[in-house]
């Protein structure tokens, strides 16, 4: 595992030095939910508060200048990280807001058009129109679209899954047609680990004139991603899963689409002119950033980007790939253990869900927790995916740069311990 020196990295994360449950050293394998933060990120946030804190874009005094500069540099830095220009980067509070921003463009345009406001017809929905997602979406990329349909009369469709946890691509032919107005697809599934062929799907979407959206929450933190290469109109992700602070998310959009979309949250700092009778709006990205912004969090996220780039995203991906291969090998051979998701490491990320025969995932997680191993149990905000695989829930490990092979060994040991404890034949 050349490149990623886990021991050295761990030293940058104070929390990884703590113990849990009666002095057991912490093994954190829940980075799919949220990652830990290196001191570099904490220092950057704190330094901002201690030296330059002010409302960005809302003042002319020196602190306001500095805060605006810090915020806009952070935007440029985050853009650069994914191959995008500053003006294509919108800051939100999390990926969920980013995806809602995308979805509300449709319901808002539809309502505005009904009362005479001119809107881009691509965002105007009516009965007969359809919205396409997949059966492996995180709730954040499913429910907003369900709501759009409930508010416009459009119909939700979804790409089904194979037993191996991949998209049934042959179904696309039927699912994407002239009724399709938007296709929103997860890049890497948070529950199955599957990496989807999003560029191909976006091309199919564009062929019928649909808007293409990608949920890149689980890909951008873990591999090099050039958002333009995805071919999407909009790409959403969160800062807190990529070493950044809580409270900040990102929406990338092409200039064309961001210009065409109506605003979402409205208020201060997103306007051009305001009168009681009506207002006009600033160009993107400002148009989508109403209110005093999360400047400290943007600064922290930029520091997270610096940290990841210093490691190199190729190296990060290679490191996780090695962990994935090892974990799939070990878990795949463990009696009574079934992996939910692709069994091979190709086109697959490091989030691995599994079930243990005769033990509820919650109980597996509890035994692991008791050994100091933090994993996630439940439906992982992808409940329909659980239903598809006829499991009530799964146990999921999701390693990151601060995990190594020994952490995988610990999980295997933990599963065996659970089988012993619950007296399940293994």
């Amino acid at each position, binding site marked *: 595992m050349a490149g990623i020196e886990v021991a050295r990295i761990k030293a940058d994360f104070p929390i990884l030095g703590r113990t849990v*449950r*009666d002095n057991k050293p912490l093994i954190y394998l829940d980075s799919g939910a949220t990652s830990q933060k290196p001191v570099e990120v904490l220092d950057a946030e704190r330094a901002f508060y201690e030296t330059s804190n002010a409302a960005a874009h809302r003042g002319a005094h020196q602190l306001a200048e500095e805060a605006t500069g810090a915020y806009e540099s952070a935007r440029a830095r985050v853009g650069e990280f994914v191959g995008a220009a500053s003006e294509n980067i919108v800051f939100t509070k999390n990926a969920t807001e980013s995806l809602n921003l995308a979805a509300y463009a449709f319901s808002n345009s539809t309502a505005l058009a009904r009362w005479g406001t001119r809107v881009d017809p691509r965002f105007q929905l009516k009965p007969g129109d359809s919205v396409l997602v997949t059966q492996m979406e995180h709730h954040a990329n499913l429910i907003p679209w369900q709501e759009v349909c409930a508010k416009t009369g459009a119909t939700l469709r979804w790409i089904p899954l194979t037993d191996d946890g991949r998209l049934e691509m042959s179904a696309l032919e039927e699912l994407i047609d002239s009724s399709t107005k938007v296709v929103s697809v997860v890049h890497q599934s948070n529950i199955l680990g599957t990496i989807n062929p999003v560029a191909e799907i976006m091309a199919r979407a564009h062929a019928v004139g649909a808007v293409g959206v990608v949920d890149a929450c689980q890909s951008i933190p873990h591999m090099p991603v050039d958002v333009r290469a995805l071919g999407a109109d909009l790409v959403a992700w969160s800062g807190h899963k990529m070493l950044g602070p809580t409270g900040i998310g990102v929406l990338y959009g092409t200039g064309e689409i961001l210009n065409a979309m109506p605003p979402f949250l409205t208020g201060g700092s997103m306007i051009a002119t305001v009168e009681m009778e009506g207002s006009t709006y600033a160009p993107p990205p400002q148009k989508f950033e109403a209110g005093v912004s999360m400047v400290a969090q943007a600064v922290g996220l930029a520091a997270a980007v610096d940290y990841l780039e210093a490691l190199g995203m190729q190296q990060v991906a290679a490191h996780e790939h090695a962990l994935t291969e090892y974990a799939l090998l070990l878990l795949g051979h463990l009696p009574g253990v079934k992996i939910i998701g692709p069994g091979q490491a190709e086109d697959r990320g490091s989030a691995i869900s599994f079930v243990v025969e005769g033990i*509820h*995932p*919650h*109980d597996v997680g*509890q*035994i692991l927790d*008791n050994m100091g191993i933090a994993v996630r*149990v*439940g*439906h992982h905000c992808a*409940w329909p995916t*659980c239903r598809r695989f006829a499991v*009530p*829930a799964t146990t999921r490990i999701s390693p990151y740069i601060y995990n190594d092979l020994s952490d995988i060994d610990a999980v295997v040991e933990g599963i065996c311990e659970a089988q012993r*404890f*619950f007296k399940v034949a293994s």
Partner: protein
Amino acid sequence: MSIESLYQDIILDHYKNPRGRGLLAAPLGVAFHVNPTCGDEVNMQVATAADGGLLIGYEGTGCSISQASASVLYELVRGLPVAEAEKIRMAFLELMHSQGHAEPDEEVLGDAIAFVGVAKYPARIKCALLPWMALQDAEIKGGLMTEANGDQK
């Protein structure tokens, strides 16, 4: 705190050998409760026998704590008048919110005292409470209890 304090033998026994599991022929009130964070499910049914005592039917899927809790509930409250059952329910709720510091009364709670360790694991309290919240809901739906006197959020 050892893992054994959470998973006491009584709990594991109820989990492996649930008592009275199954549905009623003619339920008065039915409540299907789900724990949205982990997907645990309990379908709880109530009716009253000729003597006024509670009849309980249930099914469910989920972790050992939630399913054992349903089994213990069945054992504790079936056959009791609604008011008696409610006292036990309240005692169980109190136990769960004790953060592990309670000295539960075995007279009242029977096998349910085994859940004392659960109170130290905030994320599991909801599992243990699931059938008991469903019970209240089923009683309200079946007209055995009014919303007002069944308020313990």
